[in-house]
C-alpha cells in the first residue's frame, strides 16, 4: 500500500455539540432542542471519554486543527470548551500553532462568552450570520437581527485574531442586485474569510415540505447560476477569492480545519453524529457515532465510545471520496494521489473530454483542478470523473 507516503500530514479533531435553542427550518444537521436543559458536565465528560477511546486507536497524533461544530457550540460554557481541549491535549499533542475553531450564533447572549472562549484556547470563530436583512433572517428562522449580528461580529473582531461568518444566499425572491449589495456590506465587515452558501432544500426539513407544496419558491438554476457568478465576482474583487466552492479567503487565511476534510486528510469525529476518517494500520476507516444525543451518551457511558459505523474503506471508495472532496478546492487534486488511493489512474478519455470543454485544467504543478466554468456544475464533473 502507498497510502501513508501520499497522505497529507495534517490531523484535525471535530467536536459536535448537537444542541440548539430552536431548529432552523432549512437545517438538516444533527441538532436537537432540549427545552428542559441538558447535563452539560455529563456530556463534556462523555466527549472526553470518546476522545480517550479514539486516541487509543490512533495514538501519537499531533493535532493541527480543532473544530467545535453543531448544533450550537456557543451554547457551551467556556469552561466546558476548556475541559474538552484539555482532554484533547491529554491524549494527543496539540500543535503550538493549532487552529482552534468554534461555531457561534451571533446573538448578544452568546457574544458575552467570546472572551471566555478565547481564554479557554479558541482562536477562531465562525459566526452563523446567514443574512444581513431582518425579514430574511426571520424567514430563515433565525432568532437574531442583522444589527445584533453586526454587534456580535464586532465583539468577535475584538476577541479573536481570526474570524469568519456564514451567509445563505439564493433565498426566495432574492435578486442579483440585492445580493450584491448585501454581499458588499458583508465584505466590509469581513476580515479574512467568508462562507457563502446557496440555500439548498434538504429532505426532512420544514423547508422541504414547503418547497414540495409549492409554498417556498427558490431561484431556479439559471437564477442560482447568476447569483453564484455574482458572488465569485464580488469576492474576487474584494480580495477574497474562492478557495472552495462556497468558501472565500485572503491567501493564507483559509480555514485549515476544513482543508483537512477537503484534502482528504485524517480527522477524528467526536460527539453525537460526528464523522471521522481514521488511518489505522494504514487502512482508512470511515467512522460515525450515534446521532441521538442521549443514546450517544448512554453508549459512551457503557462502552467508552459512541461509534455506530467503523468501516474500512475500499480503494474505490477512497478514490471517490478523494475526488468529491478534493475537486471542491481551487487548488485541485494531485492525480498521483488519486492513483495511489485507487490503484488506477484517472480515466484519460474523460479527463481529455473535460479538458476539451474547459471544465478542468492542469496546473503547473501537474494538479488537476476545476475551472471557474466547471465549478457551477461541479457535481456533474465529479460524477463524470468518478464513474
Amino acid at each position: 500500500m502507498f497510502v501513508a507516503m501520499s497522505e497529507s500530514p495534517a490531523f484535525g479533531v471535530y467536536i459536535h455539540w448537537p444542541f440548539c435553542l430552536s431548529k432552523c427550518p432549512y437545517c438538516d444537521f444533527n441538532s436537537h432542542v432540549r427545552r428542559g436543559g441538558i447535563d452539560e458536565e455529563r456530556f463534556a465528560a462523555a466527549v472526553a471519554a470518546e476522545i480517550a477511546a479514539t486516541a487509543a486507536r490512533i495514538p501519537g497524533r499531533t493535532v493541527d486543527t480543532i473544530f467545535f461544530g453543531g448544533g450550537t457550540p456557543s451554547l457551551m460554557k467556556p469552561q466546558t470548551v476548556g475541559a474538552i481541549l484539555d482532554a484533547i491535549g491529554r491524549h494527543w499533542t496539540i500543535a503550538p500553532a493549532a487552529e482552534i475553531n468554534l461555531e457561534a450564533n451571533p446573538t448578544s447572549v452568546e457574544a458575552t462568552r467570546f472572551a471566555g472562549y478565547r481564554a479557554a484556547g479558541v482562536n477562531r470563530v465562525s459566526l452563523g450570520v446567514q443574512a444581513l436583512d431582518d425579514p430574511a433572517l426571520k424567514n430563515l428562522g433565525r432568532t437574531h437581527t442583522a444589527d445584533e449580528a453586526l454587534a456580535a461580529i464586532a465583539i468577535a473582531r475584538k476577541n479573536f485574531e481570526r474570524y469568519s461568518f456564514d451567509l445563505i444566499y439564493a433565498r426566495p425572491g432574492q435578486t442579483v442586485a440585492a445580493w450584491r449589495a448585501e454581499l458588499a456590506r458583508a465584505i466590509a465587515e469581513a476580515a479574512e474569510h467568508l462562507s457563502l452558501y446557496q440555500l439548498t432544500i434538504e429532505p426532512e426539513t420544514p423547508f422541504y415540505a414547503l418547497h414540495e407544496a409549492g409554498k417556498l419558491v427558490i431561484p431556479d438554476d439559471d437564477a442560482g447560476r447568476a447569483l453564484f457568478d455574482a458572488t465569485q465576482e464580488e469576492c474576487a474583487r474584494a480580495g477574497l477569492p474562492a478557495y472552495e466552492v462556497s468558501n472565500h479567503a485572503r491567501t493564507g487565511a483559509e480555514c485549515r480545519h476544513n482543508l483537512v476534510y477537503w484534502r482528504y486528510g485524517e480527522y477524528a469525529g467526536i460527539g453525537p453524529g460526528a464523522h471521522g476518517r481514521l488511518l489505522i494500520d494504514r487502512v482508512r476507516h470511515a467512522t460515525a457515532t450515534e446521532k441521538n444525543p442521549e443514546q450517544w451518551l448512554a453508549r459512551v457511558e457503557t462502552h467508552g465510545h459512541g461509534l455506530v459505523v467503523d468501516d474500512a474503506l475500499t480503494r474505490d471508495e477512497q478514490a471517490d471520496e478523494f475526488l468529491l472532496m478534493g475537486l471542491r478546492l481551487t487548488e485541485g487534486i494531485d492525480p498521483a494521489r488519486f492513483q495511489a488511493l485507487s490503484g488506477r489512474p484517472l480515466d484519460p478519455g474523460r479527463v481529455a473530454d473535460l479538458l476539451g470543454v474547459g471544465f478542468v485544467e492542469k496546473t503547473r504543478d501537474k494538479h488537476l483542478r476545476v475551472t471557474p466554468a466547471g465549478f457551477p456544475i461541479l457535481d456533474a464533473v465529479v460524477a463524470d470523473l468518478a464513474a
Partner: protein
Amino acid sequence: MPSPFRGGMFGPVPWPNLALPPRTPDVIWPAMATAPIKNIRNFSIVAHIDHGKSTLADRLIQLTGAMSEREMVGREQVLDSMDIERERGITIKAQTVRLAYRADDGETYVLNLIDTPGHVDFAYEVNRSLAACEGSLLVVDASQGVEAQTLANVYHALDAGHEIVPVLNKVDLPAAEPDKVKQQIEDVIGLDAHDALMISAKTGLGIHEVLEAIVTRLPPPKGDRAATLKALLVDSWYDAYLGVVVLVRIVDGVLKKGQRIRMMGTGASYEVDRVGTFSPKLTPAEELGPGEIGFLTASIKEVADTRVGDTITDDRKPIEHMLPGFKPAIPVVFCGLFPVDAAQFEDLRAAMGKLRLNDASFSYEMETSAALGFGFRCGFLGLLHLEIIQERLEREFNLDLIATAPSVIYKIKLRSGDELQIHNPVDMPDPMAVLEIEEPWIEATILTPDEYLGSVLKLCQDRRGNQKELTYVGNRAMVKYDLPLNEVVFDFYDRLKSVSKGYASFDYHLTDYHAADLVKMQILVNAEPVDALSMLVHRTRAEGRGRAMCEKLKELIPPHMFQVPIQAAIGGKIIARETVRAFRKDVTAKCYGGDVTRKRKLLDKQKEGKKRMRQFGKVDIPQEAFIAALKVDV
C-alpha cells in the same frame, strides 16, 4: 402443488420449465379406449379475445370429466399454459384435449378439441390447426358481437371446409342482445344462426347442448385405415424429458410405436418412440388410427426439425403427394434486441436459444450497434409475436432489453440491376445506387363501433392507407384498408386501440409489394448518427416523425455539461432539430462536518443512474429514451 401443465408432461408447454426438478414420465396416464372413426369428432373453437373460448373449453373438460374438480380448482383457462397467454387472453400454441363423452344416444364419443392460436400473427398456425378438424364452434359474445379477428378465423374455418356451430356466450348478462348478434352473424359472415346455441360458459348454462351439437351437427372424420400413413403435423413443442413432441392428425393409415416415419417437407426420417393422446396430459396409446388427433415422439432434438403443416408418412412406402397448404414460417417483422446491461449479452444469447427450441418461427442473428453494443437482429411472424418474445425474454429470463424500431422486409432494386432484400436500415445501400424500393402491403379489416369510425379512418389515412370497403352492420362499421406494413408495425395497433377506446378490432393479411418513396431517416445525437434509431420511412412522413422523435429525445435525455443537439436527417439534410440544454448549476453548496459518506452514497446513486443509460459518444442516453422515441405518435 406444481401444475401438471407446467412440468413438461402436458403437451403444449412450449419451453422447458427449468424451475422444476426433473420428472420422469410416470405421470403419463393410462390409455383411453379407442373409438370407431364414426364416433370421433375433431373440432376447434373460433372466438375473439375475451369472448369466452377458454372458459368454454374449461367447462367441456369439466363436464366430460377429463380433469377432476380438484384439478380444476384455481385453474381457470387450463388450456392456456403460459402466463402471457392467460394474462392477455390469447393462445399462442395450439393446445389439445381429448374428451370422452357419453352422448344422449347412449354411445361414447371421442371429442378432440384443438384450441387454436387466435391472433393474426399466427394465421398460418391457425390454418393448420383448423385443417386437422372437421368442424368449429363459433363463439360470439352476446353483447359484443362479431369482431374482426373472429371474422378472419371463421373464414379460415370455412375455407378448411368446416361445419360451423354458432354459439352465443354470456347470454346471462344484462347487456346481452342475442337476436341482434344472431342477425349480425347472418349479415356479416353469412352463416345461418337461427339455431345458434345460447350459453353461459361461466355459469355452465347450455354446455350439455354444446356437447350434443358437437356430436350431432359436426361430421365425423373420414379416413382409410388400410391406406399408407398420411398425417398432418399440426404443431410441435419441446419437452425437457421427451424431446420434441409432435401434435398430429392422422388422415389415412395407422401410426404406431416403432414405426419409421418420414417428414415429407424436410425429408428427415425418425423412428417413433411413443404415440398417444391428450387427456390433456400425455397419455400413451398403442396406435393412432385415421381421424385421430394425438402426439408422437421420435427422439427429435429440435422443434426447428419439425415444420408446422408438414406431412408425415411411412418411410418405407411413402405416399406421393403431400397434404396441401404447407409453407415454411417466414418472419415478416424484424427488430434488434439488445441487453440494457452489456454484461447480459451471453444470457440473452442463451435465453434466445431456449425460446427458439420451441418456436422455430422466431429467428435471430448477432448484430452490433454503435449505440447499443452487442445484441441480436430478430425476425417475428408479426408484432404480437415480437411483443411476446420480448416479454418472455424479460420476464422468464430476467433480462432488461432495448428493442429498436420494428422493420419489415424491403425489396431494393439497384441501378446495377441487382436486387436485394433488407430488413435493417443499417444495410440500406447508398441512395444513389438505388433505383427503386418496394415495401410490403397488407389488407386490413377493422371493425369498430361507429362513433369511433372517424378517428379510425383518419388513422388509416395518416398511415398512407387506401380505403377499399366500408360497410355497416347495425351500429358497427367494417372497413377494409390497404396499408403499408411498415406503417402498421410502427405503433398502429396501440393507436387503433387508443382512438377507439379499445373497441376496434383488427386483422390483416399480407398482400403484395409496391414501390414507394422511402428514405432512410437518421437521428443524430451530438452530431453522430444513432444507428439504433434510424429507420426507413415514407418521404412524406419523415419530417413529422423526425420532429416528434427529436422532441421526445429532448424530453428524456437529461441535461449534460454541454449542449446536446438532437437532429433528424435524411442523407445530409437536417429536417428537425432540438437541443438538450446544458446544466447551469449542479453543485452541492455545503459539504459539512466531514460527512463524506453521504456524498459518496449520492455519487453511487448517480453512478447507478448512469449505468441505466447508454453512453453514446459523450452523451448518456437513458434506455427509456430509445423506447419512447420509437413509440412517438405521428
